[in-house]
């Protein structure tokens, strides 16, 4: 066991935990004021719900003894045998508990990401049930496939910190949910304008900060690779923030604050699968692409007309996909991408993209339909007019 790495990963776990309140604010600022709390809640409460599920059964489904490359066994159910030393730990250098809790924070934020797609119209009880099922039936298997000894990892798919596990999966789920739940009341006729952009920027700042734990921590050690992943994360994010505002500027508008924040998140997403595999300059190239591509994806959405309220598809789905493919091209550290002549890696990345989208979309579809038919998911028009804060939580965000 390595106590340096333990210190580093515990702090990284705290940083990743902080991302979820950050996401709550990022999303909360983007909705109308009558929905601010309901939106914040759909992120915040994942810290409660998912953490418990993870301890009870989620962790073992993801990291228990591999069953056919598809799922983990129940050996670690109720954290049985997950202790203060490294016995049984997937990371030998870390106490098993440290590895488990670091992974827990990733599991928490992923369903929270999806909530942006159905913001301002999802009922809370259904949301809880949907998220619980989604965690166990989509996230846990995906996590196992990539990092837990499952088939995607075995196949050689590169995903340093969760491009597929976290971002593509939530992006695919978001697309499915946005289509199935339908539009917000007034979509197309009313303006849905963010009610508090400073809150959104604060959220973006917290996300950027916490993401160092996410990506550098995914080296699982405080070594040179962690430094490299840290640098790649920062530079790709910087590049994407710039390229997004340049894209909107050129596209005929003005450079906006929300654009800078959105570009930063797009860059963070896109560099996630690549962080430990690319050089600093490759990270900049990757980030420049991310800002433009995700901006384009959102413009496209405005034309396609499904109501992905806070652009989870455009940023996490598209950004994660782009990042996964770009990793297959740009990888030069501990792996070889297309630019080192290894076309096979790009093919593997492509397969992992198709598998992730297909699996996550299909499973989300089933879960959504089942929960919708039983607990019910969409708030009616009257509740939407009132605002979800009053309708679902009997609270309002602000008082004069």
């Amino acid at each position, binding site marked *: 066991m390595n106590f340096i790495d333990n210190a580093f990963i515990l702090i990284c776990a705290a940083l990743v935990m902080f991302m979820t309140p950050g996401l709550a604010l990022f999303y909360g600022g983007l909705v109308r004021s009558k929905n601010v709390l309901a939106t914040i809640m759909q992120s915040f409460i994942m810290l409660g719900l998912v953490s418990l599920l993870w301890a009870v059964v989620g962790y073992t489904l993801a990291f228990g003894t591999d069953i056919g490359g598809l799922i983990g066994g129940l050996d670690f159910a109720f954290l049985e045998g997950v202790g203060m030393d490294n016995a049984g730990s997937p990371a030998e250098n870390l106490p098993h508990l440290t590895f488990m809790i670091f992974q827990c924070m990733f599991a928490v934020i992923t369903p929270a990401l999806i909530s942006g797609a159905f913001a301002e119209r999802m009922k809370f009880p259904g949301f809880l049930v949907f998220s619980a099922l989604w965690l166990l039936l989509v996230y846990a298997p995906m996590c196992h496939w990539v990092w837990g000894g499952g088939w995607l990892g075995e196949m050689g798919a590169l995903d340093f910190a969760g491009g597929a596990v976290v971002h593509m999966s939530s992006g695919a789920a978001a697309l499915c949910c946005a289509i199935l739940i339908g539009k917000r009341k*007034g979509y197309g*006729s*009313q*303006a849905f304008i963010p009610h508090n952009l400073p809150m959104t920027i604060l959220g973006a700042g917290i996300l950027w900060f916490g993401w160092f734990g996410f990506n550098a921590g995914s080296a699982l050690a405080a070594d040179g690779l962690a430094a490299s992943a840290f640098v790649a994360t920062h530079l790709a994010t910087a590049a994407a923030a710039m390229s997004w505002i340049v894209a909107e500027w050129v596209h005929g508008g003005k450079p906006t604050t929300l654009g800078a924040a959105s570009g930063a998140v797009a860059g963070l997403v896109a560099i996630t699968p690549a962080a430990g595999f690319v050089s600093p300059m490759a990270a900049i190239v990757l980030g420049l692409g991310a800002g433009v591509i995700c901006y384009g994806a959102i413009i496209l959405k405005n034309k396609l007309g499904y109501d992905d309220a806070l652009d989870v598809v455009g940023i996490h789905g598209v950004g994660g996909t782009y990042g996964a493919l770009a990793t297959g091209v740009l990888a030069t550290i501990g792996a070889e991408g297309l630019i080192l002549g290894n076309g096979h890696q790009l093919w593997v990345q492509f397969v992992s993209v198709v598998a992730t989208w297909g699996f996550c979309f299909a499973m989300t579809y089933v879960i959504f339909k089942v929960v919708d038919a039983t607990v019910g998911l969409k708030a009616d028009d009257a509740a939407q*007019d*009132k605002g979800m804060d*009053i309708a679902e939580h*009997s*609270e*309002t965000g602000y008082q004069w």
Partner: protein
Amino acid sequence: MKKIEIITRTFKLDEVKTALAGIGVKGMTVGEVKGFGRQGGHKEVYRGAEYQVDFVPKIKIDVVVEDDFAAQVVEAARKAAHTGQVGDGKIFVSTVDEVIRIRTGETGEEAI
């Protein structure tokens, strides 16, 4: 000239504005208010303590128009703001003695 005050639901602002603009209203002034009426309020709960919030958010639109245009404005606003549910709001009409446009100093109907 007449001043028409329209108290309506917040989400009806756009519809009322469009309706009024549609019949030729050139200007209006809008404020955020809270209304108390038959609609009743709602319950808010903070740490187990319940509060009855009697006031619901409403929008107040002030439009000043020529005397003989008033009836038409009232009718258009009423239609646009109508949902048929309790809480649709009210329209108040009163008389304005004089209107001045600050920019030009014009007065009376010219200034509207």
